[in-house]
């Protein structure tokens, strides 16, 4: 099968590409690459440049692109998804696989999570069946959300946190997300379907901070305050973590809502043994 991966050089893309080795693979990025295992091409989903050529002959397309960090990320994400959707239809693509966000279907989703949902809708707008996997925080090296938590744990002996630290979430290991994504490739039963891809454990962000701290041999004091707004939180994160405020703010806004799996159909479809949180975090810290 011919497979094209948009966002192949991102955190998830890099984990996914080796799992698609049995296919004829085209890896798309915005800058030139030359690595074994795939044909690397340059294309930009946002401008549309090179997209048609990247999709030529493709059966399955992975869409792992987002514009988080841009001021108008919602508009950019919608436009990029529409471009890929229409070009995929023109190229006769049979399936688009998309990684969205858990909690994005809620009626009061944050702008970031709403954008993830709208991106999925735009991808389906030209008639190519979309398979959507929805994940919460991805636990892996380079994941913006994980690096944010890690930055806090590493730098602060005392944390003054907003109330979102008590929100439940279901983080999933980077390897597990990649295996789920690879598992639905070309699977006709998944065409047009959406799946919640939760990790094996539900925890609050506070528990997550405490467990990462334990792995690092730290014991930060956590003080919850009810008045820290997402804007103030993002400025604070910009100051103390490697994540910029423009990325942190939409992430923090999304933390107010629970991000847990509401159904387990993916576990029946692909009965993988999921990586426990501590093991996933250990790998990310290595």
């Amino acid at each position, binding site marked *: 099968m011919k497979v094209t991966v948009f966002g192949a050089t991102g955190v998830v893309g890099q984990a996914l590409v080796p799992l698609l080795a049995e296919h004829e693979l085209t890896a798309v990025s915005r800058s030139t690459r030359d690595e074994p295992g795939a044909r690397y091409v340059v294309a930009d989903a946002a401008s549309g440049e090179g997209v048609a050529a990247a999709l030529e002959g493709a059966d399955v397309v992975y869409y792992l692109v987002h514009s988080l960090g841009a001021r108008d990320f919602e508009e950019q994400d919608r436009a990029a998804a529409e471009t890929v959707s229409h070009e995929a239809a023109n190229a006769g693509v049979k399936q688009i696989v998309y990684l969205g966000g858990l909690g994005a279907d809620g009626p009061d989703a944050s702008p970031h999570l709403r954008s993830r949902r709208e991106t999925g809708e735009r991808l389906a707008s030209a008639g190519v069946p979309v398979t959507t996997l929805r994940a919460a925080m991805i636990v892996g090296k380079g994941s913006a959300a994980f690096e944010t938590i890690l930055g806090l744990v590493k730098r602060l002996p005392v944390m003054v946190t907003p109330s979102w630290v008590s929100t439940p979430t279901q983080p999933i290991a980077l390897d597990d997300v990649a295996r789920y994504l690879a598992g639905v490739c070309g699977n006709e039963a998944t065409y047009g379907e959406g799946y919640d891809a939760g990790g094996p454990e539900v925890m609050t962000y506070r528990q997550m901070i405490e467990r990462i701290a334990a792995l690092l041999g730290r014991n930060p004091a956590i003080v919850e305050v009810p008045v820290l707004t997402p804007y103030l939180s993002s400025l604070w994160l910009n100051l103390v973590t490697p994540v910029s405020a423009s990325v942190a703010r939409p992430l923090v806004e999304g933390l107010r809502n629970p991000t847990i799996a*509401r159904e387990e159909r993916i576990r029946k479809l692909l009965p993988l043994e999921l990586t426990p949180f501590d093991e996933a975090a250990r790998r990310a810290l290595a």
Partner: protein
Amino acid sequence: MLESGGFESRQRVLVGEPVVEASEAGARTLGVTYWQAVDRFTRGCVRASWTGGGGKLKLIGGATLLTFGPPELSFDGGLVKCRHAIQGGLLALRAGGSVTLAQRPQGVQQELSVTVEGYLPRLAARAGAPPWTGMLYAKGQSPFHAAVSRRYFGLLLRSHDS
């Protein structure tokens, strides 16, 4: 009110189809949505806070209104439920009772329910005491609980529809 001094209450609605899956994830969704309803109804003034050992319902400023055990999730046939044991807090006279969020088939429909069983509220009138001693419970806590349940049913249905 039961002879034991415990209270029972049950709010329910009937809907046309299941709103959560019959699975652990579905049962957990019932619980998480209920605590979200408390947060929304009180505009963040009362929030659930969880650790591995259970949860606390905390008033803004830090007072612990109720403490709960960890969620006991079950799904058997059509019955999906999330039960929390009540372990204490300012609004409990002592540990005892539970709150259960459930979805069960009811004929061709599905019943969503919030059931409190065996709860010993501090604000209620004691057995044999004049009724006015329980005014705070009857006119405050009990209607509050019913209103949270209504918000919970609404949230469940809205998230199912979206």
